[in-house]
């Protein structure tokens, strides 16, 4: 199995909100990295997980599937998933795949935090 070309950093902004900064490629090979980041981001008091896509360099359709899987896990914990930092291209991808129906997209980190 090829190695994941992605790094993810988790920031717990406050007891109810965490941010996962994504740097690199999101494909099927990023699954372990993403789920580990989510496990770190999610605490008993976390209500909102925010994905920072400003470092995203590549995403294929398996990567979209991975985001869906994450969304399901988040919802099972009664949490919300938000996003910011999407380039115009990836914003279109979210619209094309209708991921934006369930993951609200914001223009900036501050806007996403304000909505959290």
């Amino acid at each position, binding site marked *: *199995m*090829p190695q994941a070309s992605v790094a993810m950093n988790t920031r717990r902004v406050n007891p109810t909100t965490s941010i996962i900064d994504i740097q690199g490629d999101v494909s*099927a090979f990023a699954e372990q990295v993403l789920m580990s980041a989510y496990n770190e981001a999610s605490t008993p008091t976390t209500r909102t997980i925010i994905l920072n896509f400003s470092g*995203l*360099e*590549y*995403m*294929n*359709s*398996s990567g*979209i*599937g991975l985001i*869906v*899987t994450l*969304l*399901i896990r988040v919802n099972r914990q009664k949490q919300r998933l938000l996003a910011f930092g999407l*380039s*115009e*291209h*990836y914003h*279109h*991808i979210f*619209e*094309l*795949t*209708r*991921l934006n*129906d*369930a993951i609200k997209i914001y223009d900036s980190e501050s806007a996403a935090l304000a909505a959290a």
Partner: protein
Amino acid sequence: MTTSPIPTNEQPDEQPRDAAFWSGQVSGLKVSNVPSGALNLNVDGKLVNGPLQGFGQMWQKTYRITLNGAPLSAKEVIRVWKEHFPDFWPAGNRFFGPLTGIAPGEVALLNLSMPGGIALSTGVLVLYADEESFTLMTPQGHVFAGLITFSTF
């Protein structure tokens, strides 16, 4: 149907590596050239549905096959899979692919034999296709709402 690349204000050299592999924006599916013998119903004008637009239990199923000793690279397997995709369908079910092959933005027709002798006509959008994978996305009216990805590594 072929959709145009996703419009962007980004300069060509700033486009991500995956830009060319995605379908363009689709406001409603359209089959331009209906292959001979295909029933074209329930496709034109339909929106695509991802797994989040469906109802009922959501499933994620992964099927893996190891091709031990196969003298083919991952890319060659996908190339053959794309070229002969209609040949791999079960008897009674037909996949009418676009003339240009499985490529981003293309729409294929499906004529399926359902239980009780009912024929279902629907289709799929080629959401994504590169040298090592391709993904189909279902339209409204399809048996399920979601994505199906064929990939190799």
